[in-house]
């Protein structure tokens, strides 16, 4: 049976409704924080703002704390409510999602660390265009995945799953052009490697956003599409009301 974003507020126990609502609210708060971390880490690099980069690294603790807090809430719901069906799927999806969001937080921190290295070295901005472009792309993926989660929106979740392929190919071509720069100017290798690490982190963020979208499909349809390539997805079946 398909569920909607109202499904979890129809229990006879209002307290249970409230607990599930809190899980979603806290997950969205964590998602918002993580998205800001990416945005600021990339801004720190592009604007050469080392204070902002330091701030991103400090904020990672807040992301980690939120993961622990939400996981505790999920554990409590599992222990006290023994949720079934869509309630169970919501709790599982939230636990999985916090783990991906925490990893996105780590990637943002990595971007900030490499931004600091690049700001200190201060030579050139090769690859920055690609960083800006891919970062905007993966931030949109993350935002869409979170919106899909909040609205239980299968179509939007599927769009995110497909988007990940585009990010992967952008990443590959960015790496190729950075490789050329390194061959042309060996002195730039150190700083270009840092840019490559940043691109790598952004590409990983895209993968995590893709995971989040997959949890939305699990949550709404009860179908686990992890490890299924987008071409093999039977979208007609996913979009049909079951």
């Amino acid at each position: 049976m398909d569920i909607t974003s109202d499904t979890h507020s129809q229990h006879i126990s209002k307290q249970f409704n409230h607990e599930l609502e809190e899980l979603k609210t806290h997950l969205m708060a964590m998602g918002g924080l993580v998205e800001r971390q990416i945005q600021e880490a990339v801004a720190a690099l592009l604007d050469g703002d080392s204070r902002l980069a330091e701030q991103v690294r400090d904020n990672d603790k807040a992301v980690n704390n939120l993961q622990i807090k939400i996981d505790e809430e999920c554990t409590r719901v599992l222990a006290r409510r023994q949720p079934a069906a869509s309630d169970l799927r919501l709790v599982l999806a939230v636990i999985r999602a916090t783990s991906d969001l925490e990893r996105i937080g780590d990637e943002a921190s990595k971007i900030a660390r490499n931004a600091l290295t690049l700001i200190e070295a201060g030579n050139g901005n090769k690859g920055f265009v690609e960083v800006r472009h891919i970062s905007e792309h993966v931030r949109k993926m993350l935002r869409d995945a979170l919106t899909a989660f909040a609205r239980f929106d299968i179509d939007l979740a599927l769009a995110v799953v497909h988007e990940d392929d585009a990010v992967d190919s952008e990443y590959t071509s960015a790496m190729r052009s950075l490789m050329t720069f390194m061959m042309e100017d060996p002195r730039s290798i150190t700083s270009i490697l840092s840019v490559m690490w940043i691109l790598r982190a952004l590409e990983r963020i895209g993968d995590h956003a893709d995971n989040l979208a997959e949890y939305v499909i699990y949550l709404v349809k009860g179908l686990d599409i992890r490890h299924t390539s987008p071409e093999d997805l039977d979208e007609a079946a996913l979009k049909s009301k079951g």
Partner: protein
Amino acid sequence: MPVFDPETRRAPEAPAKESAITDIPAASSALEIEGLTLSYGEATALKGLTLRIPRQRVTAFIGPSGCGKSTLLRALNRLHDLNETVHRQGTIVLEGEEIHAPGIEVAELRRRVGMVFQAPNPFPMSIYENVAFGLRLQGGLKRRQRDEVIEWALSSAALWDEVKDRLHDSAWSLSGGQQQRLVIARTLAVQPEVLLLDEPASALDPISTLKIEELIRNLKSRLTLVLVTHNMQQAARVSDYTAYLHGGELVEYAPTDQLFTNPRLAQTENYITGRMT
């Protein structure tokens, strides 16, 4: 070929009035119920149920009070025969035999299809005599053979170790949980093929409940079990298949794993997750 195919994860689409799990073939079902309608006077308790109950599996019936789950259970060993106001249509086939066929003896049917009720009901006699009761009725066993069967039945009911030194004490000296296992041993002693359990643990404390549930799991290697319970977690813990009944109709019948993680119908979802309908 899509790796994931909703058809293999879900029960095939069926009309709102679900009739049976299609993946239980007739050959592996102990009981086949077809078009079973049962009414108490004017009130219809079961409305044309059709389902198969798989052999050597635990099948749970869940549903709100008055949904017909106990009525269905009782129909399986003809407990309604004693009530003249009950009218029945439809058939119940046990291992190929219609249980209402003229040649069927009710006492023999009830040996083959044993029943355990909500409140433990040991007879007012010793532990030993409780288990020996059915055997004595059947007759034909020498004392030593009978002792062996009694030990086997009590062991099968996970009670032997607790009572082996006090077999001649009154059954009433046992705790509620032990009494329930004694009643199960009494039923097992006559070698039934099907065991019907009507809320077998609802009067028991959590530890005794878990012992009964463990026993149900162990017994399914030998017989077919049908469980009626209000405790959904219990149905989820012990059963292989779950049937959700409402208003005398079979709403959804599916493998328990599926019914409790991704039920097909909103009505089932609402019931098992405690939502307002």
